[in-house]
């Protein structure tokens, strides 16, 4: 008779389980069917009343119920989780937290790129100062008082001796003085000043990097190789390089180095004034007069020097339309330059 009741219980169990929809239903259902006081557990409490077969049957039913219940528990838990996940949905298109990289004035990017290239070639860095004496800026660079080159570099003077440096070349004299006749390999980044009206292509303040190498048996070929290596690193391997004769008082022979215009592929356009090439730096073999003036014996040592205009490189590399932008520092401009 009890066994019959159990069959009924099982039916009831299945029927009621279907009605369980959430955690509270589940608790209620557990109390009814699987708690200690539930019918099935009471039967199990009086197990010795039953035959072996009946016991077996009771356990079967009990195990069936437990299994079904466990299944339901998992199901409900899963439902609840699904619901929570659904509620947690975010809009992935909302803005990111501000960890993105900000902009840097491109002058610094170019400066650091050039420094890195020359560090790799065994050069050290010696920053140029903004102010120096006429003696270092001109005299020791073989530009005496009556020299025409003083016209080319119209100078801001602070008094009869001090001036704002017109180039970074004055660092050559300083480094030679400090190196006392020993080999030199330095680059010198710094600010330069000339009495130019500021316009699209001129700025009274600009940045240069000077390079100086003095050692035994240095020739123009070494300079050519070094500059080609440098320019290709900056502008890419596909750019062509043109070397021209030039004149600087502190180098002899002097050369000017041009890079092919990328807008027209060196066919000539307005960008390169129909030349196909754009001037990017001046260089040369250190004038023996400069070596002697700065305490080096030209019979023992020779060297080369070069000066690169940072603005010019940045203008060419990034296609910047106005040199004044470097000094206005519009956030919209800076935001465009994140990484080399």
């Amino acid at each position, binding site marked *: 008779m009890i066994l019959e009741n159990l069959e009924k219980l099982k039916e009831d169990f299945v029927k009621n389980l279907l009605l369980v929809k959430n955690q509270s239903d589940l608790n209620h259902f557990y109390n009814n069917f699987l708690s200690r006081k539930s019918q099935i557990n009471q039967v199990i409490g009086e197990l010795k009343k039953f035959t072996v077969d009946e016991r077996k049957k009771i356990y079967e039913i009990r195990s069936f119920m437990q299994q079904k219940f466990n299944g339901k528990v998992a199901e409900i838990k899963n439902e609840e989780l699904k619901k929570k996940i659904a509620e947690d949905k975010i809009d992935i298109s909302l803005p990111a937290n501000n960890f993105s990289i900000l902009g840097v004035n491109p002058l*610094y990017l170019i400066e650091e790129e050039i420094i890195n290239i020359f560090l790799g070639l065994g050069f050290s860095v010696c920053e140029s100062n903004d102010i120096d004496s006429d003696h270092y800026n001109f005299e020791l660079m073989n530009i005496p008082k009556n020299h025409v080159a003083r*016209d080319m570099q119209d100078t801001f*003077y602070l008094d009869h001796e001090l001036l704002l440096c017109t180039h970074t070349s004055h660092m050559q004299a300083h480094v030679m003085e400090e190196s006392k006749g020993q080999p030199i390999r330095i680059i010198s980044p710094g*600010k330069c000043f000339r009495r130019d009206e500021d316009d699209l292509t001129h700025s009274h303040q600009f940045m240069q990097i000077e390079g100086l190498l003095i*050692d035994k048996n240095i020739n*123009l070929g070494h300079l050519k190789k070094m500059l080609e290596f440098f320019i290709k690193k900056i502008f890419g391997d596909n750019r062509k390089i043109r070397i021209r004769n*030039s004149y600087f008082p502190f180098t002899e022979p002097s050369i000017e180095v041009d890079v092919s215009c990328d807008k027209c592929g060196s066919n000539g356009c307005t960008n390169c004034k129909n030349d196909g090439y754009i001037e990017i730096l001046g260089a040369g073999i250190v004038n023996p007069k400069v070596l002697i003036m700065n305490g080096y014996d030209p019979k023992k040592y020779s060297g080369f020097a070069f000066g690169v205009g940072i603005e010019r490189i940045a203008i060419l590399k990034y296609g910047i339309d106005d040199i004044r932008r470097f000094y206005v520092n519009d956030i919209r401009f800076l935001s465009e330059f994140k990484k080399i």
Partner: protein
Amino acid sequence: MLISINWLKEFIIGFETISLEEIKSKLIFNGIEIKNIYQLCNATNLIVGKIIKCVNVPGTHLNVCQINLGDEIGVKQIICGAANVRDNLKVIVALPGAKIINKTIQSSVIRNLESYGMCCGLSEICSVKIDDEDKIYELDDKYQIGEKNIIKLLGFDDTILDVKLLANRADLLSVYNLAIEFSSLFNCQLKPLVINEYQGDKNVDFKILNKSTKCSFFCVRVFKKIIVNESPDNLKKYLISMGVKPINNVVDICNYVMLLTGQPLHVYDYDKLPKKELIVEENYEADFVALNQKKYQIKKEDLVVTSGDNIMCLAGIIGGLNSACDQKTTNIVIEAGIFDNTKIRHSTIRLNLNNESSNRFIHGVGKQQKKAIELATFLIKKYCNFDFVSKIITTNEEKQVVKKIILNVNEINNILGTKFELKTIISILEKNFTISNIDDFNINVLVPEHRADIDNINDLAEEIIRFSDFSQINNEFPLIKLKPGFLNIKQQKELEIKKYLRNYLYEISTYVLVDKKNVNYFNYLNSDEPYKLVNPMSDDHLYVRKNLSSSLLNVVSYNIARQNKNFGVFEISNINSKNYAKKNFLAIALTGDQRIQGDLIKYPYSFFSLKGFFNGIIDILNIDINKFTFKEVDTDNIELHPNKSAFIYFDDKIIGYLGELHPNIYHCFNIKNSNVLIMEIDLSFLFEIKNNEFKFLPFSNFPSVKRDLSLIVDNNLKIEKIINLVKNSGGFLVKDVSVFDLYKNENFSDKKSIAISIILLKNNATLKDEEIKSVMEKIKSALTKENIIIRD
């Protein structure tokens, strides 16, 4: 400089076969910058006409001209407004359809009068910057009426190169020296410049004297009974090509010789000189009316040529109107000299008198004065005639110094990185230099007088590679001792700081030169007098800045005005003042909000943002932060907000400042409706501070205990003091104290409520309850002693 190709052709055999492209590429390679290449005259449909009758239109400057244009066209009416239009004048007529400079000529009606084309002035048909004063070009009577090829006959079929020469090649400011250079460059033969020498009459009533050390040579020649007239076309054409205005035959000859040889000459009317003398001297102060009819104030430092104590000429620059040659002149004195280039440069710049003559003296002229006078003599004989010519009167003897350089073939190859043989070098150099052999490796090179740029073996190396090409040069890295290249400690630190700050701020670059207003702000770190420019371009860039803050605030202002209101910028830069050389300062400016997540979550920049950056920098430099003290600024500070700013001290030295701008200073930088914060620190000083040795510190693995306290304290009590009180009273078990809540106390206006948490930790054991209790009691009693109320 303008170069006439036609003139060069007169001296270079076969130059006409060289294409413009080839000329262009060779010149570029040789460092001669080509600014422009153009035809002197591109005009079409021009014809020679003769004005038969010229009648003025009453009340106007216009004239109705009947012009005979030859058999083919006949007589036509042309309206002409030129000042020099008159009967029987032969002129160049642009026929209807003619293309001249900037326009096409059409038959037109002017004031109801028909005009068949136009009578042309020089600047209307030629690309020259010569002021022809509204005059039409007057033709020599020899040209046939109806001649259509007049441009070629006048020699205006010229090509002009507008070039910029290298600064060391002043000798190329001479057509003949250019011809020498070009003949070598293009491998053409050069025609010699034949100069006849006139002995001249020794008996001449004329004296010269050189009283200045700034004139190294001076000579004159006197000519008598010459005829001053208009120059012939074959003289005028080259002057026009080179942009020099023809005046009269005597003046034109002087200019012609200058263009050809590079030696400026000056001509005086002999009869207008007060005394028969010319003296070169300085120390004159007077007004001087020059040939251009303008008045100039001559100062003591100007070099002048005088006669009878009157200034006749501003030496090397411009002559005086008082001794100018005109149509009535019959006797003349021609002068040639060498004047100091610096002197001429200074006078030229001061008086704004840059011209062909001063330009040549500024760049330096060679020793060719007698040669130039002889050449002028030949031309004066030819075109002006003379009855009497004197000897050349000189102040001193011209000494020709020939430079000799010994060239060793290995030395050249060592400079250039080439493998030239001596014979190749000789073949290159012998075009411009006199060579004599010494042995298989050495030669003597004699440098011609005009090549002042050649002094030593390196100059010759340049000359060789210039006439060869750069592909001859090897292309390899030097074989030198290996040497590591690296940034020194300071440079590394600076780069680290930059990279750190770039994560949060824009790195900017601003001008070093500032105006008077900006140089006076924020001088807390540097009280020196600023450097002031002796020769500024404008008041905007007058002083060398002593700090960066003003520059940054101007950038902030600029961007706020352009609707960028939430950002921060920084700059690291040199600072220079009289006692403060080569210092590096760092400045940071912040405005608006720090954006955490776009504009959704943001937080206003504050004093504490700057304090955070300072801590970050100190972390990078690995300096103990406790070595710095922050001190409030004075209550009467006018640039920084007195209650939201601080000075940073290291010992007794102020090394930085940070804080919000004073409300009254915003308008000085044109900043409206924004909060702005500024920080500036002496970075060089921080670099000098000895940093901590970096070693690992072991930490306790036992659990820590956290205890919170709620306190009510006086408004003026600094949090820092409370934290120190807790640390000192709690002893070594107190590992950390932090503030986690802070608000104004609602019950007492002079009190604030704070909540702190205290972390207790023992290095070698788990803390026992009684230990915790004992520490907390000590802390509480210490706080209570300081009148701090502890809430339960």
